[in-house]
């Protein structure tokens, strides 16, 4: 690989579960820009079982677009020589099975909750949770049986604050040892111990001869502190070792690159972190959502601290499991047309059977966007509790903390035919509060930019500034109690160039005023006495906002959002909202 300062061209391959994207980033003058992109079907599953087939196909498409040779002598040509090859080649991946983890710990609301959050920081699923809760007759036998039957990749063992409980943690460790000893050596789980640090040596002694043990800092060192980073890093390292490096066809791709494989979620969170530092607003966070076919990733940065959470369901794969747990009504309630449960269930099944297809009829699109809303809600409800948002970002209890901007990525949402459809799905799913700019990763380049940040931060920053993100608009979401139709805020809009407009927003409505992409305006906002737009109840002021593909939006539908329970009324309401945002 060329030295970092000599890198002028980078080819990034983003292997998702359904689509593989290839992006060619090049230095153009002093800036870095994406000069070409291609996408193809991911070929990691049958009938192909080789990721490199899709990658080579995509590279050939890039070659035909750019007229350059990128693939020569059976490999990506690195480094660049003349008109052949690129200076760096990177692969980011989410197209592999998540780690299968069994979580073992003591108290549900304490160590187990922290352990759960640690697992959600990477591509991992919790196959079972082991604890003493539930009055088990023979707990160690039950725990050992669970591990033996599930044969997980890892056991995350947590429990006991530092210097706290000992015996119950060791009992869990004994059960893990028993289960592991019954499995063939290559099927024994890696044990990540992140509990009471005083027990590290005992746990290692108990398990070390049987299986691989990794000890990290306690995820819950005291009852009121949480320390997830080291356990999350250990899980991510294991994911990279056990999954990324063993993905079908990855050995070929890895041989073409000297750069490490990176999980897509990690790459995505780098960009969210970058945006927080760029914006420099300590009183609010930055949020990113990546709605994929198989997983939904939520990355957030508050007060300079980064959080990433991967939810094990997306818009295609895992839908039926999700419905079995959460019910069909949760999806049905967002569909603006009449649809019976049987037809909806059939459509969800078929989407799961053929995840690479896309909605062809309007009804199919409504179903997909309904799924997006629920994936966002579910991911937020699992990710949110881990955020230490600080007082400033908190607007009111039971609502989302203030975040600006909100970055939207992933084929599940950015491919909606109309920008208003994406915007409304985000507003319904996340229900943001205060003032937020919604940035759409329309070319689905953000994970690639995050990967580039790991080797050449300036190139990543430059690519981000050069039009990779498209603004959907600025959304003002007032919070507070009011009657339907009551004026919740008055607003003066002064556009660049001096033209002015005075408008009102009514409770229960979503209203859009023109503010084009790239256009700026100054707003003078006067909320009602009990209404908060992020400046405190009844407090208004002047703010400068950015336009977008939809415009300037006031979402005065209230928080949390309530849908009418009568199906006819609900559908009429949904259709009105769709109409209002041009969806």
């Amino acid at each position, binding site marked *: 690989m060329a030295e970092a300062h000599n890198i002028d061209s980078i080819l990034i391959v983003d292997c998702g579960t359904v689509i593989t994207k290839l992006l060619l980033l090049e230095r153009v003058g002093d800036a870095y820009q994406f000069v070409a992109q291609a996408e193809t079907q991911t070929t990691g599953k*049958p009938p192909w079982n080789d990721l490199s087939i899709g990658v080579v196909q995509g590279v050939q498409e890039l070659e035909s677009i750019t007229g350059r040779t990128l693939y020569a002598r059976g490999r990506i040509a690195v480094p660049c020589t003349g008109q052949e090859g690129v200076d760096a080649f990177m692969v980011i991946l989410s197209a592999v099975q998540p780690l299968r983890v069994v979580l073992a710990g003591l108290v549900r609301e304490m160590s187990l909750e922290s352990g759960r959050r640690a697992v959600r920081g990477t591509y991992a699923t919790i196959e079972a949770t082991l604890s003493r809760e539930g009055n088990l007759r*023979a707990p160690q036998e039950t725990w050992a049986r669970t591990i033996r039957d599930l044969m997980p990749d890892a056991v995350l063992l947590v429990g006991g604050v530092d210097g706290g409980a000992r015996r119950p943690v060791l009992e869990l460790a004994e059960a893990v040892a*028993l289960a592991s000893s*019954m499995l063939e050596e290559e099927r024994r789980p890696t044990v990540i111990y992140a509990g009471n640090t005083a027990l590290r040596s005992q746990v290692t002694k108990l398990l070390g001869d049987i299986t691989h043990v990794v000890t990290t800092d306690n995820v819950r060192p005291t009852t009121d502190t949480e320390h997830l980073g080291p356990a999350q890093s250990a899980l991510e390292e294991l994911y990279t070792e056990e999954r990324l490096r063993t993905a079908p066809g990855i050995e070929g791709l890895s041989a073409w690159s000297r750069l490490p494989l990176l999980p897509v979620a990690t790459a995505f969170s780098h960009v969210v972190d970058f945006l927080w530092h760029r914006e420099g607003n300590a009183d609010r966070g930055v949020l990113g959502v990546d709605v994929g076919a198989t997983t939904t990733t939520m990355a957030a940065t508050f007060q300079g601290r980064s959080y990433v959470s991967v939810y094990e369901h997306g818009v295609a794969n895992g839908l039926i499991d999700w419905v079995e747990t959460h019910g069909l009504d949760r999806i049905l309630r967002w569909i603006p047309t009449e649809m019976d449960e049987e037809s909806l269930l*059939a459509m969800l099944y078929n989407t799961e*059977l053929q995840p690479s297809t896309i909605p*062809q*009829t309007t009804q199919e699109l409504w179903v997909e966007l309904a799924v997006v809303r629920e994936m966002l809600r579910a991911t937020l409800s699992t990710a949110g509790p881990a955020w230490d948002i600080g007082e400033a970002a908190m607007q009111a209890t039971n609502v989302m903390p203030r975040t600006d901007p909100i970055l939207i990525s992933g084929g599940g949402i950015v491919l909606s*035919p109309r920008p208003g459809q994406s915007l409304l799905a985000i507003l319904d799913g996340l229900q943001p509060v205060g003032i937020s700019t919604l940035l759409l990763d329309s070319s689905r380049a953000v994970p690639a930019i995050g990967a580039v940040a790991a080797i050449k931060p300036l190139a990543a920053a430059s690519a981000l500034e050069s039009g990779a993100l498209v603004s959907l608009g600025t959304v003002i979401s007032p919070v507070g109690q009011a009657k339907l139709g009551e004026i919740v805020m008055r607003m003066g809009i002064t556009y660049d160039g001096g033209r002015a407009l005075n408008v009102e927003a009514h409770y229960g409505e979503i209203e859009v005023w023109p503010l084009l992409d790239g256009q700026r305006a100054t707003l003078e906002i006067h909320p009602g006495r009990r209404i908060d737009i992020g400046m405190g109840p009844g407090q208004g002021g002047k703010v400068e906002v950015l336009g977008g593909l939809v415009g300037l939006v006031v979402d005065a539908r209230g928080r949390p959002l309530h849908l009418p329970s009568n199906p006819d009324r609900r559908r009429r309401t949904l259709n009105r909202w769709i109409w209002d945002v041009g969806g």
Partner: protein
Amino acid sequence: MIIQHCIANPLTTIRTPRRLSHPGTVLTRTGDSVEPSQIVAQAVMLPDFRIVDVAQELDVPLRSANSYFKVERGQAISEGDILASKGRFGSRVCQAPFTGKVAGVGRGRLLLQGEPQIVRLNALVPGYIVEAEPGEGVVIETVGGFIQALWGNGYEAHGVLRMLVREAAHPIRATLINASSQGSILIGGSTLDEGTIEHAKEMRVRGMIVGSVPAGLIPQLREAGFPVIATEGIGTTPMTQAIFDLLRSLDGREASISGDIGNRWHPMRPYIVIPMPTQVGRAIQTDAPLAIGERVRLLRGTYRGRSGTIQKKLAKRVQLETGARLPGAAVDIGEGELVRVPYVNLERLF
């Protein structure tokens, strides 16, 4: 451009992998001829186990619990054997819950291990072993008809194909199944209902192939005890005409069917193998570029499940009802009807 594909071919060379779920022993060798019911590999499953807390069950101190043991490590035990006891008359005893052995002793507890269970894997399809991976499984080569489906209920079977309907749009009704259906793999056009499944169970049919299955019946189908395969997936979509015609032409022949769909991370397609008494099958080139006149199936929208031929690869993007614009083709779905379909919603039929 990579487009999904589905094989629905009357005469081709089929390679059927048969893999053990756990490492085991392969019982056949490369070149061996196998029959559907022949065992090709077997594995020993992890035995049952139990921790018997003698100290707790006999209510004796942990320190002295070992002195009550009547068995020792490594000793074979039968169900009901006394493992530990306290007192002579009206005594408390611990009995073996199953036949096996004492695998461990310590801290007042006994670790018991049951007898190993053997899982056997049959060939399912007739043919020749062309690959034998020690400990894992085999690949069997067969020449004949091969049809891939979209959904299956997990079961497998071998039997004689019996076409029960005249049209691809006709469902299998319970009244069509009778005593002569016993041991057969029944073929219907569109779908089936609850009564049909129950009646098929009573008549001991070997399997069923339909266009689609209703979503609400899936839990029942998973417990059916025989394979049910849907070529079009879930719902009421009739069987693709090309597949229906092919199955009709194979009526009365022996077939092997697998309804295994794997899981979300390792998906598999259910399939039907119809062996033919010939040595040569047509090779299928799945990586050749999409050609005019090629057979395709439509996967989404109003025309879901219809098959047709590529009439033109469109230079301009196809505009969908949703407003999306994507690269696609014009497909002739018969009777002069042309529809424009994005490539992502097409499947090539080989």
